[in-house]
């Protein structure tokens, strides 16, 4: 697992900064998101008040394919798939049903799926893409930062791309130059938004 390269909390109150560093660490760890983050900078000014979090993300490129979690045993007229990890079972079945029809797909028990008379080679089935783990990542990250930010800060601007994330929150309307602020914080990590 890649470690977080840069993790700073910037705040005028040292005690508050230390507390928020701990909170951010605990929340990201609980949500299993630390491995996603490459660099993270949090800026809090309780006097304005404003909370800014900017992050550079690790690239999660690997797509989940059927071959990653299932063994395929071709037999006469059918193929038996032995599932090692159930996480992606539901999306896989959905794809099979759409592609081959429900008549050709059977699931005798939790860890076995049998395909009857399908027009595909085992190799092709192994290559079917089941899920893209980076897709819900942005949403998960934003959710985590809603927990990290002080609760009263309910006016938010949340932006996430595949490689960066920025989160600004305040209890008053956000200032107009908030993009400039986000850019400044990215610059502190030697990154661009």
């Amino acid at each position: 697992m890649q470690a977080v390269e840069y993790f700073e909390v910037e705040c005028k109150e040292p005690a508050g900064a230390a507390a928020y560093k701990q909170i951010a660490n605990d929340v990201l760890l609980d949500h299993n998101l630390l491995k996603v983050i490459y660099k993270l900078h949090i800026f809090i000014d309780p006097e304005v008040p404003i909370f800014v979090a900017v992050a550079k993300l690790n690239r999660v490129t690997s797509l989940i394919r059927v071959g990653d979690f299932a063994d395929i045993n071709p037999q006469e007229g059918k193929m038996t798939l032995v599932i090692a990890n159930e996480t992606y079972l539901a999306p896989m079945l959905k794809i099979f049903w759409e592609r081959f029809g429900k008549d050709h797909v059977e699931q005798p028990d939790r860890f076995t799926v049998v395909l009857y008379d399908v027009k595909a080679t085992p190799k092709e089935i192994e290559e079917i893409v089941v899920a893209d783990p980076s897709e819900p990542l942005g949403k998960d990250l934003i959710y985590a930062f809603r927990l990290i930010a002080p609760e009263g800060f309910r006016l938010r601007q949340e932006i996430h791309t595949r490689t960066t994330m920025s989160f600004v929150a305040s209890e008053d309307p956000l200032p107009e130059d908030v993009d400039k602020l986000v850019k400044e914080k990215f610059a502190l990590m030697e990154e661009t938004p």
Partner: protein
Amino acid sequence: MTLVPVTYKGGIHQHDIVISLIEDLGGYIVQKHMIAQEVVLQAFVPREDIDLIARISKPLFGEISESPLVGTEIAVVSMSLEIHHLPHPSCDFAEYARRIGAKTNMVSPARGPGKRISTINDEERDVINEHDIAVYAFGNFETCIKHKWPAMHRGVDVPIVVMGGPDKETLERIIDPPADGYVGNVGRFMRRTKEADELSKLDEIVAEVTRVLEKKRQQIAKDPLSIQPARLMEVVREQVPAILDVTSPTPLTVQMAGLRVKLPYDTFAEPIRQIDLGDGIHLKDLAEVVPSRMRDYILVKILPFSETNTVI
């Protein structure tokens, strides 16, 4: 005879011996928990008889210890009931205090979080005022605590212990007008308190709460109550049998100067006022029976000796 709050822990076997002993000595059982093979009693017993109880319960593997929070009701004021503040640290403290005998309730203002926007309304204020003490769980920034304190404590006349992220000295400096107690370095955090240093922090809060309550106790002792709340609890249990059918964990909650009766006010206020305390004295002569702002419960506020000229 001074009654002191104690906790008794022991096996379930023959624990009724201990219960009748406490009652025979003139003590009162406030709460009784049966957890698997163990019994935990929270009680008031005469100070000079603690050794006797310890001696008699020794063959039953019972232990008795003083626990000053027994017979108190504490409001833990969490800034919200969102995941930001619960279950840590508010529930952690509430649960810890409960384990050593206090009855804790979580109170959370509808608009608690934030700096400029936080405030409490009259219902929340009244609910807090029905407790013996309030413990405010604030956040991590001194700027915010300083800003929201005047709004959050407005109208609250019970003692307040403030816990917050900045250290104790900073809290004492920024909280104006002053609170009754302060515990620093416990702001918002999102992990369970289980390490030794975190648990000692909880002990520190308990110590501060105990100190403030002790002051209140001394004040009450100067003008004693007309009837002991624990004794009143026994009487209500005898004379209002409907209380025995209430399924709340504590149908009768003992406070330092009162009693919360978890029965509907409209139906049961009059029978409670008419409770006979002997010699022609009724409860209405010694206490105010008022509706509680918590559900439709009844709150019995016991009057001091100076107002009734009677002590039972």
